[in-house]
């Protein structure tokens, strides 16, 4: 490998390198900063800056042609750059949300932002993965960071339990994924996606490859918390510190989904007919679990956990089409979903009373009277996540359904719409509690960052509407390379 080649390769990895080097530097800053709290604060701010810079680098790269690097192990294309940009921004927002919360909960440590940065790095690698090993490395880098973040409140039993559960189950899923990867490698003799694609195209119904695919998809399904690999989600969302849950619900979901989309459409693009059934099963189960599971919840974080399961189901409906429309519809869906969820978690993070944070849905009672702006924001966000027409979330749902319908999966769309109807029930319940129940107490003023995110996202559900065309153009360009 010559130096110039390496330089070219490294240029394409600018965002990742920035994050990697930045994370290490920030680690040093944190360690050597005089006071712990001060260190945490400065590292937090710097990390946000770092993530924004990395996003900028990704956008800059998107102007170029991209390309394969490191012998085809790392793919920089419009799709991965779009996903990276979204991931970095989502991570930055998650940090913004965490800012004051961690200080108030005495969790303000400089490792937190560093871990977020490293997790984002892992996701960036995931979405660019063009090799099974890259895939696994990125996944592990991300997952390991997330396990630690879930248990970050180590003095809280729930948080530790959440971290441990996530870790153990994550290890299992990694095992499944590796098993699948090894089957695929055994069949195709290579870990490179392009090589696998060549092998898969001629494979037909090769059992080894099929099982490899199933195990691989199972492992990835765990990361996107698709049923039946979803079981960790509600527990972890509830147990993990709220900003961590907010992070979980946004960037890693998009990254894992993007990875899944790439794996299914690039190496296994020739096997649409086979994996389509698997994705459909996952989609239906996820929608069912997401819709029904959420109905009984009283904790709003658990509710969001189930909501994310359901939403992954809808995204999978789009992905199951196996077409290019499906891929960009999924990107659009998750982009809009991230906006909604980030906002919803911002509202949850605003639920601080004098005695501390509260997490029950009933605690939102009468929010419309005590904090009208927040109430409006939450209402818009809930409706948007639920896919109510004429909020941006609707377009996400619409296009994933459209993708499935255009691929002839009309029955699946019907099923999805039915589940969607059920799921509206619990979003409406939140709205009902906000608007029609008597207030039980007032929330303390939210920190500036949280307030900004809740308002901005709430407004975005409406204000983005005129820009839908632009957004769709963007995701169509980004997703255009993938899928049949």
């Amino acid at each position, binding site marked *: 490998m010559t130096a110039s080649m390496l330089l070219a390769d490294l240029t394409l990895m600018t965002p990742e390198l920035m994050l990697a080097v930045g994370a290490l530097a920030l680690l040093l800053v944190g360690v050597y900063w005089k006071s712990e709290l001060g260190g945490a604060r400065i590292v937090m701010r710097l990390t946000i800056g770092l993530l924004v810079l990395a996003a900028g680098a990704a956008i800059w790269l998107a102007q170029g042609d991209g390309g394969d690097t490191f012998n085809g192990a790392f793919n920089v294309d419009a799709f991965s750059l779009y996903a990276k940009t979204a991931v970095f921004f989502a991570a930055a927002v998650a940090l913004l949300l965490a800012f004051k919360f961690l200080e108030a909960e005495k969790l303000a440590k400089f490792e937190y932002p560093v871990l977020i940065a490293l997790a984002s790095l892992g996701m960036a690698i995931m979405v660019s993965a063009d090799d099974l090993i890259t895939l696994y490395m990125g996944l592990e880098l991300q997952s390991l960071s997330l396990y630690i973040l879930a248990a970050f409140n180590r003095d809280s039993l729930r948080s530790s339990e959440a971290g441990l559960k996530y870790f153990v189950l994550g290890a299992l899923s990694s095992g499944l994924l590796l098993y699948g990867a090894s089957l695929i490698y055994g069949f195709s003799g290579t870990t490179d996606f392009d090589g696998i694609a060549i092998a898969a195209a001629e494979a037909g119904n090769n059992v080894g490859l099929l099982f490899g695919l199933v195990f691989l998809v199972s492992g990835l399904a765990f990361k996107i918390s698709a049923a*039946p690999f979803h079981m960790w989600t509600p527990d972890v969302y509830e147990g993990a510190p709220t900003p961590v849950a907010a992070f979980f619900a946004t960037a890693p979901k998009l990254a894992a989904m993007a990875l899944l989309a790439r794996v299914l459409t690039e190496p296994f693009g020739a096997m649409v007919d086979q994996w389509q059934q698997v994705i459909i099963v996952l989609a239906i189960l996820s929608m069912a679990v997401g819709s029904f599971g959420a109905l009984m919840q009283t904790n709003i974080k658990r509710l969001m956990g189930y909501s994310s399961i359901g939403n992954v189901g809808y995204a999978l409906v789009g992905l199951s089409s196996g077409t290019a429309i499906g891929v960009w519809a999924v990107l659009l869906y998750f982009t809009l979903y991230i906006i909604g969820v980030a906002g919803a978690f911002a509202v949850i993070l605003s639920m601080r009373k004098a005695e501390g944070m509260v997490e029950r849905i009933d605690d939102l009672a009468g929010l419309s009277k005590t904090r009208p702006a927040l109430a409006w924001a939450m209402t818009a966000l809930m409706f948007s996540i639920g896919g109510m027409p004429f909020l941006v979330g609707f377009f996400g749902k619409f296009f994933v359904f459209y993708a499935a319908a255009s691929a002839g999966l009309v029955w699946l769309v019907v099923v999805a719409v039915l589940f969607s109807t059920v799921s509206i029930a619990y979003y409406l319940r939140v709205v009902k509690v906000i608007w029609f129940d008597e207030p039980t107490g007032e929330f303390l003023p939210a920190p500036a960052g949280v307030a900004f995110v809740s308002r901005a996202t709430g407004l975005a559900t409406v204000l983005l509407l005129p820009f839908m065309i632009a957004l769709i153009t963007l995701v169509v360009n980004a997703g255009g390379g993938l899928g049949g």
Partner: protein
Amino acid sequence: MAYLVVFAPLIASIIAGLFQKQIGDRAAQIITTGATISAALASVYLLIDVAYGGNARTIDIVSWMAVGQFEVNWAIRLDTLSAVMLVVITSVSSLVHVYSWGYMADDPHRARFFSYLSLFTFAMLALVTADNFIQMFFGWEGVGLASYLLIGFYYKKESANAAAIKAFVTNRVGDFGFALGIMATFAVFGTVKFDEVFAQIPEMSGEILTVFGMNFQALELIAFLLFIGAMGKSAQFFLHVWLPDAMEGPTPVSALIHAATMVTAGVFLVCRCFPIYEVAPDTSAFITFIGAVTALFAATVGLAQNDIKRVIAYSTCSQLGYMFFAAGLGLYSAAMFHLFTHAFFKALLFLGAGSVIHGLHHEQDMRNMGGIYKLLPATWILMIIGTLALTGVGLPIVLGGLGFAGFYSKDMIIEEAFAMGTEGVTFGMFAFWIGITAAALTSFYSWRLIFMTFHGKFRGKEETLKHAHESPPVMLVPLVLLAIGALFAGGVFKSDFVAKGAQSFWGESLPAGAYSDYKYGDYGSGDYTSGDSYGEEDHADESHSEEAGYGDEAHGDDHSERHPTWVLVLPVVVSAGGFILAWYFYMANPHLPGRIAATNGPLLRFLQNKWYFDEIYDFIFVRGTRALGDLFWKVGDERIIDGGGPNGIAATVMAGARRLARMQSGFVYHYAFVMLIGVVVLALVLIAGAGV
């Protein structure tokens, strides 16, 4: 001209209804009344033009809807039948309009009232000028709506609201039959235009319609269903219950809608569709039966009512029964004739009653009246004219009969029923005897009304008597005009409607009837030419020959070959008997009724409670419906539909949610287990799908 007749009331109604605030009550009255009067004048012209000038025609206004075979035009069909109806409707309507100036003078919602009246007039006109079933149905529903609005005009009165709803719901039953009839018509004939339907009747007479696996004679079924509609609108037995309650509306409304026009729509329907009924003997027999029973039933109930308007209402019901059994016996022109005369004298009676009520400050109970003939002399005389007309007073035999309007039409129906009965037409004799009995009863309750209201001692409050007054001229003038109609309508028009002029008068719109040759006719002429194109030729010929046979047998009767003298005299005699009985009870022995009432005999209670119809209906339909509704609601809807549907789904969802919640046990190995099962399931799905 025809446009003016039909649409002037509509435009007036719209102006009065929508712009009442701007133009005020007075202008609304003037506009609606003016429109109706001009419509009345125009329709007289049309009647002359159509009936005597022979200019029967259909004016297509606009294509209403055209769906495949199904074509409906908005049209004005002008033949003698509709022209007669036009005259009746517009003339009574304009008189009622005028009358209402006085009667409703104190009402704050006059504009609304006049708007409704005109709206009703328009709907009724649309009904009678229809050239197809659909437009007729439109008018049918339109008059139903107007009737509902007018019965419930005093909307603050709970009983008025209830009555309005009752009228509407009861009519709905009939309308449902009517609608089914129209559908059946379309199913059989493939068109809803009268001309096209009637033209096909000869070929369709054997047609069988299969519904729910049962075979029906298509024409019988259609005829029956249409008659169900007529029963509802014309308050025939079983569906009559709404009419007495409809008296909650203002009295002019009762006169217009519930005496002269709307309630006769059923009769009009049967007459309009006579080609169908001619070939549907079973249904015709049914009509005869129902009509006769109604005539008797309503007359008996009328005996025991104390509300002045209700007595007249039951009287109306009873007279409608006469018209129906006439139509059922095939005496369509006689039915129309009675409809025509009845419109005048019944409107007169109603408006007279209204005058009394107005004079006594809205006192309607006859037990609180009496001896007021001196205070309301004009009303008194006019009411007596109306009663004479209703009871059919006249001199039979003399000059071929001479009398009030009702004498010509009602007695004729009774006599012809006898003729039909002797010919063996089903229920003919039955109808005759019931007609006779009802005539006696009619006479009794009519005179009872007069005696109780105007004679004897005043039984109400002193206060009321002091303020009692004769009605203003604006109310009396219409009464006088109606009285003129009640006096002369029968005598003047008898020849055109039912006698020798009938053939040319009706043209093709109605069969003139066999009797037009014989009774009051020129015996020798025999110029009965069967010009009817709707296949009633056979029937007419048949009856012709039978009548001839009977005529030979009964030869020697100096007046008519068709009727023995006793048949001609009997109605008048029983009417006189009714009068004498009434006089005996209410004039000679005024305490007798009170004593009878005190004994509270079962018969009296039976009559006072209108044969317990309301109670029975309440039990069967209201409570039955409620029970059925409860059944559907609690068992059908809640348990079965909701149980299986929304609630069931909700319950299933909740159960599923609970199950999921249980699965979410918190144990890592459970979760891992689920994941592994998931892998296995996915692997199996893939294998099954791939077919390896």
